[in-house]
């Protein structure tokens, strides 16, 4: 028996409520943000986490105990790229830091359980920092879930492209 045996016909849609009433199939990933040779200490690098099935919930642990070693959680790659460009570059921050579509997670802390349906997320952290993601997955294949972008109605994960710098 495999997890795939849970898949049913017709395939459950991401609005099929019972998928969220069950507990999720466990998903775990712990990773260390890659370094670029140590010449740019503190530079931010990102990690994409993709789920094969739509999530029922996610929880994130920022392992780092150094003061101000925050990590940032994004749900859209364009928003992430915009933020990195500003943070690692000059003081000219695209879109500013106001109204950016991400959240900040303190060092050494667990988040609450975020009961969100999504199929991918991006975490941004300093070189060498460690992070863990745990998720409970539904049986809904992620290829039936819309891409997480503004034009698909996810207005809270990406700044409106029409207003972006």
């Amino acid at each position: 028996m495999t997890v795939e045996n849970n898949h049913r016909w017709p395939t459950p849609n991401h609005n099929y409520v019972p998928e969220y009433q069950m507990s999720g199939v466990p998903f775990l990933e712990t990773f260390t943000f890659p370094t670029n040779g140590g010449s740019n200490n503190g530079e931010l690098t990102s990690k994409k986490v993709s789920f094969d099935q739509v999530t029922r919930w996610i929880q994130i642990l920022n392992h780092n105990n150094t003061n101000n070693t925050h990590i940032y959680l994004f749900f859209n790659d364009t928003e992430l790229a915009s933020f990195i460009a500003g943070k690692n570059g000059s003081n000219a921050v695209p879109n500013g830091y106001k109204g950016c579509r991400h959240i900040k997670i303190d060092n050494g802390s667990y988040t609450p359980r975020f009961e969100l349906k999504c199929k991918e997320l991006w975490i941004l952290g300093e070189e060498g920092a460690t992070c863990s993601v745990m998720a409970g997955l539904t049986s809904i294949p992620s290829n039936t879930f819309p891409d997480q972008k503004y034009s698909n109605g996810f207005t809270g994960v990406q700044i409106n492209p029409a207003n972006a710098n």
Partner: protein
Amino acid sequence: MSNWLSNTIADRDLGISDNTRVPMPHHNFVPEYQMSGYPWAITDTDLDSSETLDIDFPAVTRWFIVYCNNPVKISFKQTGSSDADKMFYIPTGMSQRLELKCKHIRIIPTANSTTVSVLAGLTNIPSTKYPDQTTDNGFNV
């Protein structure tokens, strides 16, 4: 999306609009709160104690959390200034998951240089279908 009425995957892109149903779900439709929500996030930095952060959600929330690097107060009053006795105090750090249905929150920093993040799980219920959060409408805000 212009082609949201189509029912075939082949001739349209998938979008949240595809969730639109007839009849439209009401804010008392229980299954909307039994599912997980769509992610909605925002971060604002360098807020002064004299500023407020007003957040209007495009859909009714299933839950939200607030992160702050200085204590903040939150209010649900949609119009006019917030009343001092109708605010909730959130200490530095991340709040618990607040399972509340609302379409507007106001965040009031208590110190300068405050960073605030809000993450919400949204339902499919358009916020236009939710009453304005005023005392006239029965909200004790």
